[in-house]
């Protein structure tokens, strides 16, 4: 069977599975549409959260980022997992007890302020829409590389699938599809990693292989890699190159951004009890850690494999001739993500640091090309294709869910038509979901120039506005409406200005006054500023609340009640 048929078979089978689940898990009420009827088992919810959280960025890009960034990129590993500790202890149980449907709803009720709710909706929609563009382009890339259709056709097929199960099933359909997508993506991620780890170190567990001896040299794998990189003039893999300040703040920003992303938080509204919300965060991290403990191994091993491919006789000998390059290089050259420029005209591929380098490898292809680099069988490559699509589609669905519930529940029901019947609200939620998918597809087909910068934006917004507001709403009875709104706006605006100063106003190229290489404040890059924005939010909210009246008695009682687990079940049908 040729590679194309295999890819088609694997991707087709997984898609049939997702559609089957969609037909089985249709939503009949708003409680099912927004919160899957609050009947999801904590372990299954953990799995769904894993798929929801691990996006095209985690599956496709992260190993590549680590591969070329080394130690400094540990910020992603610690940040994107450490946030779950904050979720489990500071947010999830109390928001589950609160027992409503959306994040802006909590902010609006706790701070008895429609303005606060609107600010939260704006943050949520901006963060989610920017994030979803990346997922849609990821779907397009995976389709075009593996199924030989154009980028746009691939994107349209992906959008149609998401449309089917999310509009029909809402949170219920999305939850059970995400469980299936998690299984597909984790198998797809670990199988090639196990093969590669066995090949390089003889250890079948990639996470352990990373710290084992390389079979070829008898030296530890990381020392072998350091030796190869040093010989070719590349920077060290295990040393720190970023400043400690920026590394620290970047990790903080990713952590509190993770805890503040609405599409992750709402997943904890779907479990039956407060105790389930706590343990479910743990299960989510178990399923996420399976991939995140493997990713740094994939990164380091892919770098070793890449160098060995270019220098089959060792880095001191002549590199491979361009005419004799392996098939995977030929395949990826077609996508433009891998390029060769024979500067010295000797017909060989020089891969070194500096001007003499002739090979450019886009870091996003590392995970997808990994099985080909390691010369693994065709079905593994097909599996990785299906896994990449599962990662992108599951995150896209979660984001679209967050957007549509914000529109239907926080805008239409809360602001425009409070008397709306449940049946009509459900219809409104389905229509908003449909519109959100159309908008996301359009933006995926015509990605704005700033698509690559959006991670900074999404995490910056979540870290500087949503996380502090939620945390203060739970842990302080003294923060009032004025304090919360002032804090959120201050954190949000300062963070936005800082990002725009470095990335251009509204991401228009050339309008930036500073660059991340030489930032405005000390060595704080725009991607790390969410942590500072959050500090500003906390300080302003406290100061303004102190200077104004304390919240009314019923709000203080609300805070008391969300701190106590008893009674969460009764909040289901409100």
């Amino acid at each position, binding site marked *: 069977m040729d590679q194309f048929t295999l890819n088609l078979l694997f991707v087709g089978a997984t898609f049939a599975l997702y559609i089957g689940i969609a037909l089985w898990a249709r939503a009949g009420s708003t409680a099912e549409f927004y919160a899957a009827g609050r009947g999801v088992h904590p372990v299954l919810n953990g799995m769904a959260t894993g798929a929801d959280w691990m996006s095209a960025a985690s599956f496709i890009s992260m190993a590549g980022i680590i591969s070329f960034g080394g*130690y400094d990129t540990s910020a992603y590993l610690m940040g994107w997992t450490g946030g779950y500790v904050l979720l489990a*202890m500071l947010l999830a149980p109390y928001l589950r007890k609160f027992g409503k449907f959306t994040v802006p709803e909590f902010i609006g009720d706790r701070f008895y302020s429609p303005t606060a709710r609107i600010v939260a909706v704006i943050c949520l929609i901006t963060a989610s829409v920017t994030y979803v563009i990346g997922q849609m382009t990821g779907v397009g890339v995976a389709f075009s590389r593996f199924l030989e259709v154009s980028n746009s056709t691939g994107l349209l097929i992906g959008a149609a699938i998401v449309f089917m199960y999310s509009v029909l099933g809402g949170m219920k359909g999305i939850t059970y599809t995400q469980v299936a997508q998690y299984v597909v993506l984790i198998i797809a991620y670990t199988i090639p990693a196990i093969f590669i780890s066995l090949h390089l170190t003889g250890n079948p567990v990639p996470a352990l292989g990373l710290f084992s001896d390389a079979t070829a040299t008898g030296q*530890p794998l*990381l020392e*072998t890699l350091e030796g190869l990189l040093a010989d070719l003039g590349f920077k060290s893999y295990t040393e720190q190159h970023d400043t400690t300040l920026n590394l620290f703040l970047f990790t903080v920003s990713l952590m509190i951004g993770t805890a503040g992303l609405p599409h992750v938080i709402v997943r904890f509204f779907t479990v039956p009890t407060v105790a389930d919300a*706590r343990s479910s965060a743990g299960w989510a991290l178990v399923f996420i850690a399976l991939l995140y403990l493997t990713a*740094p191994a994939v990164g380091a091993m892919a770098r070793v494999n890449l160098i060995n491919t270019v220098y089959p006789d060792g880095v001191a000998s002549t590199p491979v001739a361009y005419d004799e390059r392996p098939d995977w290089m030929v395949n990826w050259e077609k996508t433009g993500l891998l390029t060769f420029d024979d500067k010295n005209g000797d017909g060989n591929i020089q891969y070194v640091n500096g001007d003499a380098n002739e090979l450019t490898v886009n870091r996003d292809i590392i995970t997808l090309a990994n099985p080909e680099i390691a010369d693994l069988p065709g079905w593994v490559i097909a599996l990785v294709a299906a896994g990449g699509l599962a990662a992108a589609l599951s995150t896209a669905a979660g984001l679209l869910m967050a957007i549509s519930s914000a529109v239907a529940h926080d805008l239409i029901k809360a602001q425009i038509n409070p008397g709306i019947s449940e049946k009509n609200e459900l219809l409104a939620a389905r229509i908003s979901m449909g519109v959100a998918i159309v908008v996301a597809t359009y933006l995926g087909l015509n990605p704005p120039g700033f698509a690559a910068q959006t991670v900074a934006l999404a995490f910056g917004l979540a870290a500087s506005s949503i996380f502090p507001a939620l945390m203060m709403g739970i842990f302080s009875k003294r923060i009032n409406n004025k304090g919360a709104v002032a804090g959120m706006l201050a954190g949000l605006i300062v963070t936005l200005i800082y990002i725009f100063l470095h990335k251009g106003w509204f991401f228009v190229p050339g309008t930036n006054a500073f660059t991340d290489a030489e930032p405005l404040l000390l060595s704080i890059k725009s991607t790390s500023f969410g942590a500072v924005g959050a500090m500003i939010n906390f300080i302003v909210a406290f100061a303004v609340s102190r200077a104004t009246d304390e919240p009314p008695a019923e709000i203080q009682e609300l805070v008391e009640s969300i701190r106590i*687990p008893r009674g969460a079940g009764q909040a289901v049908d409100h």
Partner: protein
Amino acid sequence: MAENSENNAYWSANLRIIGVSLVIWFVCSFGFGILLRPALAGIKIGGTDLGFWFAQQGSILVFLVLIFAYAWRMNKLDREHGVEE
């Protein structure tokens, strides 16, 4: 008011548990992985130093233990204070 003081005691106990957990959370990620890495440079593991291991793997393993320990401890606390569901 009896219920109120019971609830306050429950909340203070929760805050203590969170405080201890977050100290461990901070030390094992920001501490060992970033700020204290130079101090741990002498301890070697698998071809590199302990700080590198904490930054890439150790911190994640600690996070896992922390969440499950917290969930277990809080279930116990819920029962002790009679606020479980």
